């Protein structure tokens, strides 16, 4: 047979919902030509629980535990974004101490979430026996211990309340945070030494899954995925909420928006979070209320409000429409990862299957948030 008689044809492969590295029940219909990804179609909805609809049947306070179930690796952000929206809606002023407390748990959460994201990304690169992930989880365990200290939970915190937080910090918490902030740089240096210049990590992630600045902006991407393309956009600076305007920190950006930049941006953001934590520990007022006086049954005025914060994966927003009753009339969640994966196809076409997995991992998705 002549070589020209040989025919090849692309074939469709169904990745997920049960696949070792689709981070939950994400499914993509991938068309492959040999090893090369020719087409890709994400299929969503395997984890749909109707959380936005459920909000309409609950009072404003009752909905807080459900927000934990969105991006469960960043529950504090979900709590924060939701209560921020409700506070905007009802015009509640949060005590200063509570704002600092929120910033502290938020930044701890950001470190924890980024640790998991970087760990899973390296796992997707094929460090298949979990070594980097286990190193990251060593520090994440310490953070979970801290969260357990303040609210008794390790995954779904349900810590924030409308107008403040559910509990004050216990007396041993702030010294423990200080200890963590002091020892974390040592471990961060260790990650840098082990990973940053690793030849295989560089070969597998440099230049892979590039996304252009224009596409990133026009697709409304956010978070590390957007910043890796070089756009300096961070809600903490662009639209400061809480007390973020009182801190000094930088927005780390990448250059070409590839996997490596996304990984670097996350690592740099952890350094910035440590900076914010150090400042907030210094500035935090000693005494004071940790919660404003908010009625148990909150009847916010008629109207609409949008509260947004910078979550670990990008702009996390809650849009609430109130008809003046005890429950939201309509609630919408701007889930950053859902919007970020809309560019998955553009990033991964032309790359190999192995790259597709690592690109998907570098976006850092959480299916609880995508499907809601």
């Amino acid at each position, binding site marked *: 047979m002549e070589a020209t008689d040989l025919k090849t044809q692309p*074939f469709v492969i169904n990745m997920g919902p049960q696949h070792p590295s689709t981070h939950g029940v994400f499914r993509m219909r991938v068309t492959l030509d040999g*090893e090369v990804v020719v087409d890709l179609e994400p299929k969503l909805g395997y984890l749909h629980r109707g959380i936005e609809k459920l909000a309409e049947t609950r009072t404003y306070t009752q909905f807080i535990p459900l927000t934990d179930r969105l991006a469960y690796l960043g529950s504090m952000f979900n709590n924060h974004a939701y209560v921020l929206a409700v506070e905007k809606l009802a015009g509640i002023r949060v005590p200063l101490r509570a704002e600092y407390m929120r910033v502290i748990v938020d930044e701890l959460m950001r470190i924890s979430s980024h640790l998991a994201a970087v760990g899973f990304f390296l796992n997707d*690169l*094929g*460090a*298949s*026996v979990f070594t980097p992930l*286990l190193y990251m989880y060593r520090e994440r365990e310490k953070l979970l211990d801290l969260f357990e200290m303040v609210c008794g939970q390790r995954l779904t915190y349900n810590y924030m309340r409308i107008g403040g937080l559910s509990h004050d910090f216990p007396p041993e918490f702030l010294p423990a945070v200080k200890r963590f902030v002091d020892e974390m740089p040592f471990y961060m240096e260790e990650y840098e030494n082990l990973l940053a210049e690793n030849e*295989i990590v560089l070969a597998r992630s440099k*230049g892979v899954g590039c996304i252009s600045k224009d596409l990133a902006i026009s697709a409304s991407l956010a978070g590390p995925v957007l910043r890796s393309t070089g756009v300096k956009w961070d809600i903490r600076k662009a639209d400061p909420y809480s007390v973020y305007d009182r801190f000094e920190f930088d927005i780390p950006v990448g250059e070409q928006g590839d996997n490596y930049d996304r990984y670097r941006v996350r690592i740099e953001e952890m350094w910035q979070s440590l900076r914010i934590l150090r400042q907030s520990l210094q500035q935090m007022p000693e005494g004071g209320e940790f919660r404003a006086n908010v009625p148990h049954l909150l009847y916010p005025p008629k109207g609409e409000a949008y509260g947004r914060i910078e979550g670990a994966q990008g702009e996390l927003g809650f849009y609430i429409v109130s008809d003046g009753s005890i429950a939201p009339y309509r609630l919408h969640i701007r889930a950053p990862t859902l919007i970020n994966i809309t560019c998955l196809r553009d990033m991964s076409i032309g790359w190999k299957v192995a790259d597709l997995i690592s690109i998907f991992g570098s976006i850092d998705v959480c299916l609880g948030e995508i499907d809601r």
Partner: protein
Amino acid sequence: MKELWPLGNYWAHWAVFTVIVLAFAIVGVMMYIWVERRGFGVFQLRMGPNRAGPFGLLQSVADAIKVLLKEDIVPTVADKAAHFVAPAIVFLPVLLVFAVVPFHNGFGLLPDLNIGILYVVAISSLGVVGVFMAGWASNNKYSIIGAMRVMAAMVSYEIPLVLSILGVVLVSGSLSMNDIVAGGPIPLFLLTPLGFLVFLLSAMAEINRGPFDMLEADSEIVAGFHTEYSGMKFAMFFLAEYGHALAMSAIAATLFFKGWEGPGAQYIGVLWFIIKMVFVFILLIWFRVAFPRLRIDQLMSFGWKFLLPLAIANLLIIGGEVVGFGGDIPWWMMFPNFAVAGALILLFSRAYSLGGGRVEVKV
């Protein structure tokens, strides 16, 4: 060896050593699994298996029992016959390799087979056929991708592997495993460091471990060629994988570490052999636990553009030395050899980068 047996009995030798080799392979694999899992524990800041038996030594036994009791699932669309035979075809060559491994001076099934190392190279490539059969017969797309990967990658690491073994053959002047141990003034990983490096890297690709395990890349293609296998058939693949690692480290111990030779009484030679084997295996564990996986095109370019030139350079250097010194390379040649190896690797790693980029596709 024959004079050891009463009546010069060839068949007694054959029977006894078949049993010994089989037992060595099975027990060795179990110990390897234990060493690897405990080793991973050390590398990954955790304990590793420590419940079944002292230090978790019986974990492999527990796993074996579990896997034996599992249901054997065959997909309805599978090619039943090939699906059934493939695990055996993968496992058989691994056992056959042990036939020529000399555990001690002349102690083995066929230690002084005059084409020993050639036999090893030929036999150990056969496993790929079984892997492809498994992938094809499963009728699963992930399995096919895994099987295609192994076919595509095989040539790129087998050639450097064979060329690096050829360097050893040049030094010892024989293909027999027994003579290879006897040849050479010092262990060959010192005398021919470049050859050892190329051998180690391509052996890692050959046994599908470490950063080169793309045929069963679990984060990409689920479990690669054995996605559709369960129960004892899966255990056969598992056995074959670790058995292959055992065989490769036994061969490395024979070729580059002077097998059974070492200080102490003659009869502890087997112990030396096992120590050297485990040392090589620990190197393999270290690589596997520390590095992410390469992509398939990166593995192939690594094989063709990095390992192959180095293997050829190694062959030229050793050939020149063998000719220059009239067959016996003195031990002090290790110093210039180390220097040359270091220089070559530095030079190469500058000039070469793991390539492979985006492919333009029409959408």
